[in-house]
C-alpha cells in the first residue's frame, strides 16, 4: 500500500535519508525503529508531504504522492504527533472533530460533537473532557485526545510518531494497547516510528530498522529477536558497543 523507493533527503550538509526503501502492505502495522536523529520522522513526513524528498518516489496505492489530489490524499490519513500537537485555542472536542467541522468531510456541528465524544470514549476518556482545553489535560490524556483526533474520520492509514515519548510506563502501556486495538479494529494500515522496544512488541506486525539513512533490516517481531543482524541486536538490547556509534 505504501512504497518508499530510494528516498534521499538532506537538510543543508546533513544527509538524513540516503536511499531509504520500504514497503508496507495494506492492513499491516509497520514499526520503524532507529536511534534519535536517524531520519525516522523525516521519512514519515515525506510520506505525508510535510517534507519534500530530494530524490526517490513514494507511492500510496500505486499513486505518486506528489501528483495525488492533496485533500483527497490527506483525507485517508490520520496522524498522532509526538507531543500530540493539539490546538491550544480549541476545546478538546473541536480538536478531535477538527476535520469534521470543515473541508470535504464537514458535518453538522452537533453530529461532529457526537462523533468526537464517541472517539474520546473509544480512547478511554469521559465525555466531560470534551469541553476542556488541551492545556488542562495531563500528558497521557493529551496523547489520547491526539489518538482520538487521528481516528476521528476513520482513516485507512494511521501514522504514530513516538506515541509513548514522555509517558510513564503504565500510561505508555495503555497507549500501546489502544493503538494495537484500534489498528486491528479499523483494519487500518499503520506506520509507527519509535525507539521504545515495548511499543514495538505491542504494536508491530513487522519492524524496519532505519540507520545511516537506509533501512538496514526488516522482519517480524519474532524474526527481530532471532536475527543476527548486528544493528538490530545492538539496538533492541540497548548495547553501547556495536556498529551503531553511541555518540551521534
Amino acid at each position, binding site marked *: 500500500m505504501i512504497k518508499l523507493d530510494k528516498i534521499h533527503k538532506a537538510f543543508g550538509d546533513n544527509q538524513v535519508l540516503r536511499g531509504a526503501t520500504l514497503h508496507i502492505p495494506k492492513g499491516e502495522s509497520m514499526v520503524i525503529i532507529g536511534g534519535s536523529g536517524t531520519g525516522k520522522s523525516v521519512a514519515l513526513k515525506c510520506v*505525508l*508531504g510535510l517534507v519534500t524528498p530530494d530524490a526517490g518516489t513514494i507511492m500510496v496505492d500505486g499513486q505518486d504522492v506528489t501528483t495525488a489530489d492533496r485533500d483527497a490524499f490527506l*483525507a485517508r490519513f490520520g496522524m498522532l504527533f509526538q507531543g500530540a*500537537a493539539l490546538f*491550544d485555542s480549541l476545546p478538546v472536542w473541536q480538536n478531535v472533530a*477538527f476535520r469534521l467541522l470543515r473541508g470535504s468531510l464537514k458535518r453538522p456541528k452537533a453530529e461532529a460533537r457526537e462523533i468526537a465524544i464517541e472517539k474520546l470514549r473509544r480512547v478511554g476518556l469521559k465525555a466531560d473532557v470534551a469541553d476542556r482545553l488541551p492545556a488542562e489535560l495531563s500528558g497521557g490524556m493529551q496523547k489520547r485526545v491526539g489518538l482520538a483526533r487521528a481516528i476521528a474520520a476513520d482513516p485507512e492509514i494511521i501514522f504514530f510518531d513516538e506515541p509513548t515519548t514522555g509517558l510513564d510506563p503504565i500510561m505508555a502501556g495503555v497507549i500501546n494497547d489502544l493503538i494495537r486495538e484500534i489498528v486491528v479494529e479499523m483494519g487500518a494500515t499503520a506506520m509507527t516510528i519509535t525507539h521504545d522496544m515495548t511499543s514495538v512488541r505491542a504494536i508491530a506486525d513487522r519492524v524496519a530498522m532505519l540507520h545511516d539513512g537506509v533501512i538496514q533490516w526488516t522482519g517480524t517481531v519474532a524474526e527481530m529477536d532471532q536475527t543476527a543482524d548486528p544493528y538490530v541486536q545492538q539496538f533492541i538490547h540497548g548495547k553501547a558497543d556495536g556498529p551503531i556509534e553511541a555518540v551521534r
Partner: protein
Amino acid sequence: MNLVLSPLATVGRKTLGMLAGIGRFIMFLFETISHFFRPPFYVGEFFQALLSIGYFSLPVVGMTALFTGGALALQIYAGGARFNAEAVVPQIVAIGMVRELGPVMVGLMIAARVTSSVAAEIATMRVTEQIDALVTLSTNPMKYLTAPRVLAAVIVVPILVGIGDIIGIAGGFLVSTETLGFNSATYLRNTADFLETTDIVSSLIKGAVFGGIAALMGCYYGMNSGRGAQGVGRATKSSVEAAAVLILAANFALTALLFSA
C-alpha cells in the same frame, strides 16, 4: 587575491540572502492575498481575529491617543506662545492627530500588541507541530491562520485609528479647556472647521496599511520561526522590529503620496 575577493564574496552572499528574503516575503504576501478570494473561508477565525485585534486593542489605543492628544495640546500651546500663536491649538491638535499621530501611534500599538502575540502564537504552533497537524488535517495553514488575521487587521485597524483620532482630539480638548483656558464651543468649532475629508480618509488609509503590515509581519515571522523557545523569542522580536520600521517607512511614503500636492 583572496583578501580582495573575500569581502566581496561576503557582500555578494549577504545581498543574495537579502534578495531571497525579500522574494520569500513577497511570495508570502501574494499567497496571503490570494486566500482572501479563494474558498474555503474560515469565517469563525476571521471574526475571532476581528475581536482580538480590534475590540481588545481598544483600551491601549484609547489611553495612548488620550495622552498623546493632551501632550500635543500642551506642546502646541507652549511652542505657539513663542510667536503669539497659542490660538491655533485646536487646529494643530486636529491635524496632528488625524494626519500623523493617530495612525502612527495606533499602528505602533498594534505592532506591539498584535504583531507580537500573532508571531508568538504561530511560532509556538510551528514548534509544537500544530502547523504540521493542520496540514495533515487537510487545512492550509496560510488560509486558516494568516489570511483571516491579515484581512481582519486591514478592516479593523482603520476603525481603531478613527477612534484613536477622536479620543486624541478629545485629549487635546480636555487639556485646552480645563487647563489652558480655551472656550469649549470655540475649540470644537475650530476643530470641525479646520479638518477636511481628505485628512480623515488619509488617516483611515494609513490605518488599513499599518494594520496589514502589523498582522502580516506577525504571521510571516511566526510561520518561519526557528526551533525551540529561542526560535519563538527571535520570531517575536524580529516581527515587532520589522513591523515598527515598516509602519514608519510606510507612513513617510503615504504622507508623501497623499499630501505632496
